[in-house]
């Protein structure tokens, strides 16, 4: 796409909240809550514009992702958009489809959000999180392990969803680690939707042709932007044959907590290129000390979901 787009500055009144940042976006981001904080300048600006094919000094983390030691990144998703993380406060997007297509936001709120966390000093854990009482719990695991499904089921029980897939943690917050809420949104496969009693018709498709949907909960209006102290992290371990066919929750010893959490740092290879590995590893200890870390082994059966939700609630209370 060669045409230069005019970067439209939205009015300050249209500023949005994301992970504690004041965000001004030229693209519509209907998932996000409005900014209701102080009258600071935006922490982060999203514009549309043209993007160089090659960033100076870039290394290829994958065929889609270029990263430079100066903490720039260029992500190219064919047919969707190219994204340029130009600095910690600016993202340029060159869409290849309509500006309001959800596909564009899938990668903005995935890889790009994770890289923004790294460049802005937050710890991005590959996890969904919900607020239970006045604290947060995070459900972490590889893609497909069931993070979003569990988080959504907890939300249906009245707990507020505060992040999905990329959980922004401030490990150095004064009173202990906190989760910085992202938005009240969740991605789900439609078989998961059926299991928690929501019809997929009328929801916005996540990517064209994929049977995965976004939807916004009715509670979205009551989204709380305040940081939530992190009480517990559940590391999901899929098991084809759990003991007695039931889900298990086990406490982990310190070394296993570190190993488990280390595997779930979001976009860790890029962080390594940016020289952030030593600091991230130290942060693991800051998180794994005060925060309870459990291994949660679950069955693949969705009918086990309600029981699992009840156990996590009882556990986290």
């Amino acid at each position: 796409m060669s045409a230069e787009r005019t970067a439209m500055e939205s009015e300050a009144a249209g500023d949005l909240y994301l992970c504690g940042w004041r965000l001004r976006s030229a693209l519509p981001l209907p998932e996000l809550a409005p900014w209701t904080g102080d009258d600071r300048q935006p922490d982060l600006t999203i514009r549309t514009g043209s993007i160089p094919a090659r960033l100076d000094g870039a290394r290829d983390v994958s065929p889609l992702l270029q990263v430079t030691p100066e903490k720039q990144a260029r992500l190219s998703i064919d047919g969707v958009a190219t994204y340029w993380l130009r600095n910690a406060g600016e993202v340029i997007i060159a869409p290849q489809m309509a500006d309001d297509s959800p596909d564009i936001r899938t990668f903005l709120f995935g890889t790009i959000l994770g890289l923004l966390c790294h460049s802005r000093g937050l710890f991005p854990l590959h996890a969904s999180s919900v607020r239970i009482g006045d604290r947060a719990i995070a459900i972490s695991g590889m893609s497909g392990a069931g993070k979003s499904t569990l988080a959504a089921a907890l939300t249906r029980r009245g707990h507020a969803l505060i992040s999905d897939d990329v959980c922004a943690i401030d490990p150095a917050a004064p009173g202990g680690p906190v989760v910085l809420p992202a938005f009240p949104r969740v991605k789900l496969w439609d078989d998961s939707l059926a299991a928690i009693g929501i019809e997929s018709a009328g929801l916005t498709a996540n990517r064209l042709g994929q049977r995965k949907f976004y939807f916004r909960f009715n509670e979205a209006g009551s989204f709380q932007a305040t940081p939530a102290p992190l009480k517990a992290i559940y590391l999901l371990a899929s098991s084809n044959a759990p003991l007695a066919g039931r889900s298990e929750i086990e406490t982990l010893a310190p070394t296993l907590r570190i190993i488990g959490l280390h595997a779930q740092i979001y976009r860790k290879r890029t962080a390594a290129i940016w020289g952030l590995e030593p600091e991230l590893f130290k942060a693991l200890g800051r998180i794994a000390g005060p925060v309870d870390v459990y291994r949660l082994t679950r069955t693949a059966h969705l009918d086990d979901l309600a029981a699992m939700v009840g156990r996590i609630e009882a556990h986290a209370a």
Partner: protein
Amino acid sequence: MSEVLKLAHKVSRAPKHLATEVDGNIILMSVEKGVYCGLDDIGSDVWRRLAQPQSVAAICDALIADYHGEREQIIADVLELLTALRRQGLVDVG
């Protein structure tokens, strides 16, 4: 490199490692080998002392003084620990 570790050897932390601390215990990762290593209280103490490169004997003497332990046992334990850490690429010798 395969030489048996001796009291006279000078030991130091290898430059390429990751370290963190949970409840006072040090957990290390060897970046090159991709191996994690959780240290107990005394192992964590030894690792903190390794911030200053020094001889194995100096470390043992300090531990014997601080823990009032049996000399031969402490020396054996420290040699075993440092040998394991060297094998994982976490400690340099010489």
